[in-house]
């Protein structure tokens, strides 16, 4: 089931920028439409929409989340079997295999290559056959201000 956009949409175009499959079309300042054959239900549009105009496949209202609070994959290399399914599952291609810097193991392990590109869809976690990936909000490094 595809996501949909209601007429609450103000046509800001934020979702267009984040849709990994270019499924959202629409003129600026006008109501946008999601192409139902293309939508992969990653939910990025729902998370970014400032006016809560996106409904998910079941028709529920999507709640916007601040981009810094989007969940990102965390890899457990102990469970990982380097099958690369997650890399292929990622609709934005932000994962890549690389050797662990410390280990002698010649096998590569997946990691977030392009953290900014990640849209937090969780497809990698859901397709991982060994549950080596969990989605979590990245810990924000708290900057110590003048007030401690």
């Amino acid at each position, binding site marked *: 089931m595809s996501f949909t956009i209601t007429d609450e949409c103000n046509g800001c175009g934020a979702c267009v920028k984040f849709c*990994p*499959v*270019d499924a959202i079309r629409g003129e600026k300042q006008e109501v946008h439409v999601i*192409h139902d*054959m*293309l939508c*992969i*239900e990653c939910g990025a549009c729902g998370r970014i929409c400032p006016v809560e105009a996106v409904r998910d496949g079941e028709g529920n209202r999507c709640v916007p989340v601040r981009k810094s609070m989007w969940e990102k994959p965390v890899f457990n290399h102990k469970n990982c*079997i*380097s*099958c*690369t*399914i997650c890399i*292929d599952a990622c*609709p*934005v*291609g932000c994962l890549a*295999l*690389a*050797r662990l810097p410390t280990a002698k193991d*010649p*096998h*590569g392990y997946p990691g977030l290559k392009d953290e900014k590109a990640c849209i937090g869809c969780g*497809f990698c976690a*859901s*397709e*991982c*056959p*060994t*549950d080596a990936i969990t989605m979590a909000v990245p810990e924000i490094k708290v900057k110590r201000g003048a007030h401690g």
Partner: protein
Amino acid sequence: MPDAYMGSILRVDLSGETISEERIPDSIYENYLSGLGLAAYILFKEIPAGADPLGPDNILGFVSGLLTGTGSLFAGRWMVTGKSPLTGGWGDANCGGTFSPAIKRCGYDGIFIRGISENPVYLYVTGEKAELRDASHVWGKDAVEAEKMLVAETGPRSRVALIGEAGEKRSLISGICNDGGRIAARSGLGAVMGSKRLKAVVLNGAKRIPVHDRDAVHKLSGKCGQWVRMQSPLIPGGMMAYLGAFMRFLPVQMALDGMLYKMFLRKWGTGSMNQMSVEMGDAPVKNWLGSHIDFTAKKSAATNPDILKQREIIKYHCYACPLGCGGICSTKGKYARTHKPEYESVIALGGLCMNNDIESIFYLNELLNRAGMDTISAGATVAFAIECYESGVITRHDTGGLELTWGNSTAIVELVRAMIRREGIGDILADGSRKAAERIGGDAKSHAVHAGGQEPGMHDGRDDPGYALHYSVEPTPGRHTIGSFMYYEMFQLWKVIKGLPRIWPLYMKGSKYTANKKKAVMGAACSRFMNVVNGAGLCLFGTFLGAKRIPTFDWINAATGWSRTPEEYMEIGGRIQTVKQLFNIKHGIEPNNFLLTGRATGDPPLVEGANAGRTVDIKGMIRDYWKQFGWDEKTGKPTAESVIRSGIRED
């Protein structure tokens, strides 16, 4: 709502430049699975009898597997299918990398291309649309370079399958490449792609693949992954040769458990067998005339798996593969990086030509991968040419000054280059040894080793008659990836399928060479099973784990929501085999003509080495094998009765 498969295919007609989508009824998937089965069904129906393999009527099919993208492991193989210009019959080739899921992510189970384009084009498919684009800028470029250019043009998530120079020049031993030099090499389908002037298929979809019960698939995968990760310390690579020599002396044979082979694969890749195979007689040497006495352990020491492993920068994992038998290696010369040469390449370019210059093998491997030429066929053709030269059938004048002697790596490289460019003698050899022998004439025919035109893989039927059988009986002859007695041991199918003979852990070596009904049953089981595996898109090396450890049938059930028994799947496998055979019959192939050259089956037998004095009763085995499918045991043609029984409608 289909599960596991996408339910539709893409059809492209290059002549009319039309592209259309077609829904495939569920019953087809239920009867033929996806992947190879789907392609066999469509191609059998649609390619007109007697069509020119390099003409517009031939259909080139890129298919993914039924299990690809469902979360099952080892499901990263894609297949290219068509009428083979090399054998004139059914042709398919199989490759890993990341192209297989890409087909499904565009929303198709297969892409079928017919017609001939006027100008070089490439097919660009996304989840939304498909179009033909001009490819004149990449035409003439090698496969790796062209792939890089196309990826740069269409986005980093693009997956590309394409031909190199060999395919463009319609070399009948050319294949189709993807992922920087992996190649679906056999059956000469690169030439078909070249004849269509289709440089590449570029896929860039992101669709999700439906799965009936993802959790169940994952549960099975998790268990299987545990088996794959299990690794024990192994002997050093240099010792493998002595292990092989030891096995040569033993009068008894140990049934090989796939777990052991898996550990070799995980550590060294297929190259683990480089030396061992020569020693135990599994690898052909000196164009099938020699043995470990000609190519001693000292000579083959350069192919020691540890030496290959030293150059590994990182292991290469195909899609969904936890094993990682491949590797990206550093190499000297023009190309900084290369895929690690596989066992077949090392033997074909090494032992078969008596070449022990490992640097040249690395280089040739990369050269052939980039040109999109089959390393097995190319190596075998070079070995054929060397034998011709040594026996005086061709002279220095014919070779253009090349000193084509056994093991002359410089001459071998020059020859392969000439074959890729189709220059001088290379033009004569570029279509494989059978065609070359015809062109050279005279005695040359007696030096060519092939089955139905295709050079057999680098496993000796005199050591394991199962190979000889499958080289000869398969609709795609000369293939080492279908079955052998060793494969049967490793598949351990008897553990899940009733009625199949079981193999005891130890048996007398002599029993291996008798042709009897049991062997035929085993051979037929391998063929059926591999059809299921190729329909599911699984990797052969995964299935070596053994039927209990790799849940092939359970995965299919969990992913599709069917509930079938392994026996039912084996029946589907048989059906696919019959369709492929019918395809050959339709195109006027006499199955008997695919018989492997006598030399490779021990006729005349070798006088020394591991396989001395052995002759395989190939004709007897073939008869029994055909009987297993209910085909005519003399001609190999499926009888009307067997066709009806397997539920094939010839409409």
